[in-house]
């Protein structure tokens, strides 16, 4: 049978009842990438190594506590909740550490302008924008990065962060609004 057709709940049951390691491997295969992306959206660009570490920790924790998973919630919501909390905890610990590749550099690289003065201005705006993103509440940062950086749609983000689609739309809307206000306070009008 095609493993893709097996439901998560059946894989969880197979692991719990028969200690089926293949079922656990299949769960890892399904969720490793979204868990990594969710962690990365919270930690930010330049923290890929840390996001991967979070993903490892999440699967170790899932492996350890799958026995006690009661199935009241969907497996996906459960694992994403663990990933979210793990990433937030790690972010608290690495808050003052510079990313391996600064977001400022990324912003400067992204400048589409051609003449040096415009490039400089554009890089400055981008840098300010990225700094403002970092000051937003974690959930807004995550939604913005999932949407603008990873190109995810609202439905996909909603499933990852465990909220309804309308809430994601509202997060994105409010995040843009806050960014606009923050940039205005910094005296940057043309973004």
């Amino acid at each position, binding site marked *: 049978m095609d493993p893709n057709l097996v439901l998560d709940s059946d894989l969880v049951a197979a692991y719990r009842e028969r200690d089926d390691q293949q079922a656990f*491997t299949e769960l*890892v295969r399904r969720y*490793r*990438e979204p868990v*990594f*992306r969710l962690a*990365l959206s919270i930690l930010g*660009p330049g923290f*890929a190594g840390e*996001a*991967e570490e979070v*993903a*490892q*920790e999440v*699967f*170790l*924790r899932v*492996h*350890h*506590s799958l026995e006690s998973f009661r199935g009241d919630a969907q497996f996906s919501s459960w694992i994403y909740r663990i990933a979210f*909390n793990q990433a937030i*905890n790690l972010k608290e610990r690495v808050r003052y550490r510079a990313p391996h*590749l600064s977001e400022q550099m*990324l*912003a400067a*690289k*992204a*400048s*589409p302008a051609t003449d040096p003065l415009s490039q400089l201005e*554009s890089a400055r*705006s*981008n840098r300010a*924008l*990225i700094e403002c*993103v970092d000051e937003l509440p974690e959930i807004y940062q995550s939604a*913005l*990065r999932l949407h*603008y*950086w*990873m190109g995810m749609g609202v439905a996909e983000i909603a499933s990852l962060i465990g909220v309804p689609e309308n809430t994601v739309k509202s997060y994105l*809307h409010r995040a*843009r*609004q806050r*960014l*606009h206000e923050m940039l205005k306070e910094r005296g940057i009008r*043309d*973004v």
Partner: protein
Amino acid sequence: MSEREHEQIDRALREAFTEPVPRLSADFDRKLEKRLHSGRLSSGARLALTLYVFAALVGTIWAVRSVPLLWLAVGFAVLVPASFAWALHRVERRPSPES
């Protein structure tokens, strides 16, 4: 905030996040597999470990029966904190329990 300003921020965000999204390293599964099974002892290994600890304890008591009490106290004062620190270090490197 006007519709135009919303669009401006939207465009600026798209321009700011152009760095390619990193992917998981190719050996993610191998590393996970290694970590999943690193702390697991079979029942035979657990029994062997228990027997070893018991034998080591009896052997140590027999070996130090004639050592002066002062030397025993010094040895205890050095080795107990050292082994505690080492064990703590090992535990901290493992995943923390469910929060």
